[in-house]
């Protein structure tokens, strides 16, 4: 699928803009160029998937947008403001388990509201909404230690969403889960996004996952990370897991896979 920007999309505001962003890591004598001159415009409320082999810099890209890493050169802006540090406008869902073990499910989900100083009533309203969207109502007062991996990921998702960020950054959030749980959560995430739209930047190495979840898929090259290609398959907006078996899906998947094999290292 060639890169085509439809006229209508050009009119949508840009949520995040990366301008010639490079990130260089140096430790002692060695230097690593993780990201090489990335130009990227992320549209408002789009579901963007960033794909690539391990070590291609996709996590560095996410960390730079999140504010954990300063670009060595170039600038990153969100809604025109420069990205300086981490903040609730760009909430992050990590791959590793980041659910706070000493807080119950509802305390975790309500955390962002609590540190904003909201009243108990307001916090509860937000918690009510998102705990229902991820289907964990019966586990409202449970400790994370009582939950399975998939359930904890759902808490993590609800927690990030409840922060009401402009952008939700997800770093291979389903990477540590088994396939069945992963697929369930993929479907749930897409449903969550349709119910509560916002800009999503989703990192994955799984092409099927990227194609299922994303409006646009960006493929990155191995280190140093550059944008190899951008794909916009124009799949139906509402799609469930069965869509993965659709002819269009399989065709897109094959095309992108073949274009990646040209340079990919296993």
């Amino acid at each position, binding site marked *: 699928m060639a890169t085509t920007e439809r006229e209508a999309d050009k009119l949508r505001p840009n949520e995040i803009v990366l301008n010639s962003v490079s990130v260089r890591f140096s430790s002692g004598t060695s230097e690593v160029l993780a990201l090489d001159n990335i130009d990227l415009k992320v549209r408002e409320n789009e579901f963007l998937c960033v794909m690539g082999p391990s070590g291609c810099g996709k996590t560095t890209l996410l960390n730079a947008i*999140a504010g*954990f890493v300063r670009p060595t050169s170039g600038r990153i802006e969100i809604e025109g403001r420069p990205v300086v540090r*981490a*903040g609730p406008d760009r*909430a*992050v869902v990590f791959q590793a388990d980041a659910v*706070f073990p000493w807080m119950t499910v509802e305390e975790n989900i309500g*955390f962002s509201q609590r*540190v*904003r100083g909201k009243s108990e009533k307001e916090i509860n309203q937000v918690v009510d909404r998102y705990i229902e969207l991820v289907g964990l109502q019966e586990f409202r007062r449970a400790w994370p230690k009582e939950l399975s991996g998939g359930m904890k990921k759902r808490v993590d998702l609800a927690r990030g969403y409840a922060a009401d960020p402009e952008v939700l950054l997800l770093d291979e959030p389903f990477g540590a889960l088994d396939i069945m749980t992963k697929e369930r959560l993929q479907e749930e995430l897409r449903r969550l996004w349709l119910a509560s739209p916002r800009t999503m930047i989703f990192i994955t190495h799984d092409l099927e996952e990227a194609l299922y979840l994303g409006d646009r898929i960006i493929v990155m090259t191995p280190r140093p990370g550059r944008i190899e290609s951008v794909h916009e398959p124009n799949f139906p907006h509402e799609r469930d897991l069965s869509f993965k078996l659709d002819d269009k899906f399989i065709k897109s998947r094959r095309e992108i896979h073949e274009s990646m094999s040209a340079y990919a290292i296993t």
Partner: protein
Amino acid sequence: MENRQSLQDTRQAEQPPEASTAARKSGEWREGKYLSILSVVLYLLLWIAITEDGFGIVSSTFFPSPTMVIQAAVTVGDVLANDIIATLARLFVGFVGGTLVGIGLGLLMSFSKKVYYFFDPLIESLRPVPVIAVIPFFLLWFGINEVGKILLVLLGVFAIMVVSTVEAVRNIPKIYSQAAATLGASKTDIFRRIILPGIMPQLVGPLRVSLALSFTLVVAAEFMGAQSGLGYRILEARRLFNTDVILLGIVLFGILSGVLDRGLRRLMAYVTRWSERNV
């Protein structure tokens, strides 16, 4: 939709993993908790056999028999009760004070590099000094005052807790602070809601050690200069060669520290009830 239905079912099938406490306790009995009771009984029998009049392997002055200890308890009982209260009061204030100051400063040192660099040399140079060696100075400065004894306990506890806290903070996985930051938490929020609860499991050990140390320190302080307290009473009994009272004092110390340690463990078990501990 068919897919949504299967989603519902699988969600209900997801059971949170947790064993029941009743099953765990009966398992402990099978494992050998009865052995603990057995060993105590044997130990008591041995004591009776060696020291009790009639068998008389050991002279009763050298090692009092259980009956002598019980008699002593009856004789000096009410005076002893006051002593116990006095000792426990000093211990409690010193322990709690040392814990609060120790954890407090430890957190501050982790929060601010400047605070850390300022206090670190002071703490690291004074910490290795055996607190007991400071007693003569304390006698000089505070006399036989309560303050001196409490301060001794406080310093000993402080030395342990401040270092333990700094290390515990360092051991908190970075991902929690990062996650908190992206959710809008300020540095103060992070310390209050992430770091402070997060370090609790790692402080249980140091707290128990500090409590045991507190007993040693309070007795040492009372030996050096006091007019009341269990340690003082033991010292007095030594002057009068009342070995039965001495042993009674020791037994009481054993009971008190055991009970307090148990209480501390219970408290910390509640504070850390969220954590996965290999009980």
